[in-house]
C-alpha cells in the first residue's frame, strides 16, 4: 500500500512552465530522431504546405524558458512526487508510455504554457515485484490561448 503522503498528491496541479519552441531545437530533435521530413527542416516546404513556418513534430513542445531545480526536463511537480515515491521504497525509474491528444499544430516561434497535474498514482504487481505507476497529465496552450495538446505520461518506479 502506498502511504497517504503519496496518494494524496493525486489531483495536485503544478506550476505552469513557459516553453519556447525554437527552430534550432526542432532541428536538433528531428536530427537526433533521424526524421528528414521537410516540414520540420525547410521553411519554404512548410509554407507551401500551408503552415506559417516550420512545424514541430507531434510530441515536441520546445524547451522551458526557465529551468527548474530538476533541470530542463521534468516539472518540479513530478520531482516532488517521485521523491515521495522514492521515500516509500521505489527508487528505480522507467518510462511507461504516453497518451496524446493533438488539437492544433505547434510551430516554430510558438510560446507554450504547460500545466502539469498528477492524474493518478497506483501500485501493480510486476514480473520483478511491485511497481508504482505515476501518471502526469500536462496541457499545452499556445500564445493565442489555443490548447494545442494534452499529454498523459506514465512513469514507472520500482
Amino acid at each position, binding site marked *: 500500500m502506498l502511504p497517504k503522503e503519496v496518494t494524496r498528491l493525486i489531483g495536485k496541479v503544478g506550476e505552469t512552465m513557459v516553453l519556447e519552441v525554437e527552430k534550432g531545437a526542432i532541428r536538433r*530533435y528531428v*536530427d537526433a530522431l533521424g526524421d528528414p521530413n*521537410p516540414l520540420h527542416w525547410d521553411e519554404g516546404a512548410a509554407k507551401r504546405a500551408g503552415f506559417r513556418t516550420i512545424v514541430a513534430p*507531434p*510530441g515536441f513542445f520546445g524547451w522551458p524558458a526557465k529551468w527548474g531545480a530538476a533541470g530542463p526536463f521534468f516539472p518540479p511537480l513530478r520531482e516532488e512526487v517521485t521523491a515521495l515515491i522514492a521515500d516509500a521504497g521505489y527508487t528505480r*525509474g522507467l518510462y511507461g*508510455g504516453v497518451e496524446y*491528444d*493533438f488539437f492544433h499544430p505547434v510551430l516554430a516561434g510558438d510560446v507554450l504554457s504547460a500545466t502539469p497535474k498528477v492524474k493518478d498514482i497506483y501500485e501493480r504487481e510486476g514480473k*520483478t515485484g511491485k511497481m508504482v505507476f505515476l501518471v502526469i497529465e500536462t496541457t499545452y496552450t499556445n500564445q493565442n490561448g489555443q490548447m494545442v495538446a494534452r499529454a498523459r505520461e506514465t512513469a514507472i518506479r520500482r
Partner: protein
Amino acid sequence: MATRKQLHWEDIEVGGELTELPKVATTQMLVKWAGACGDFNPLHFDEAFAASQGVGKPIVHGPLKRAWLVQLLTDWIGEKGALRKFSCQMRAMDYPRPMKDLASPQEGETWWCKGTVTKKYVEAGEHRLDCEIWVENGKGQVTTRGQATVTLPSQAR
C-alpha cells in the same frame, strides 16, 4: 514524408498496412537524443548506473521509441494528414548498437516500426483512421505498442 505521394482517405482499407519505417538505435543516437530533448538520465549512457537500475546496460530511451512511432505516422499521412491521438506503452527494453566509427554503427539489429489500420470513419467532419502501431526489435519481438487516430484528406472534397 512530404515527398511521397499524398495518401487520401479513400485509398485506405481497414486491415491495410502502414509503410514500414526502419530504425537503428546507436549509442550515438542516444547521446544526440539526450541532448535534443534534455533527458540526461544516466540510465541511457552509464554502464554501472544502468546495471544498478536492474536493466543490465544502458537502454534506448522510451520517448525515442515513441518518437519513432510518431514519425511512422507523420511519414505515412503526409503533409495534408494530421495526427489527432497517439498512445504507446513500453513492453520491453531495447539496447543500442555500439558505433564502429564516427558515423556508422556495428553490425546488429534493426528495429521496424509498423502499423495496421483498424477502423475507417468520418467524425467531427474529418476523415479519420484508427491504427495499431508497434516497434519490433531484430528478433521480431514487439518492444513498444500503441494506438493512433489520424486524419487524411478526402478526394470527395
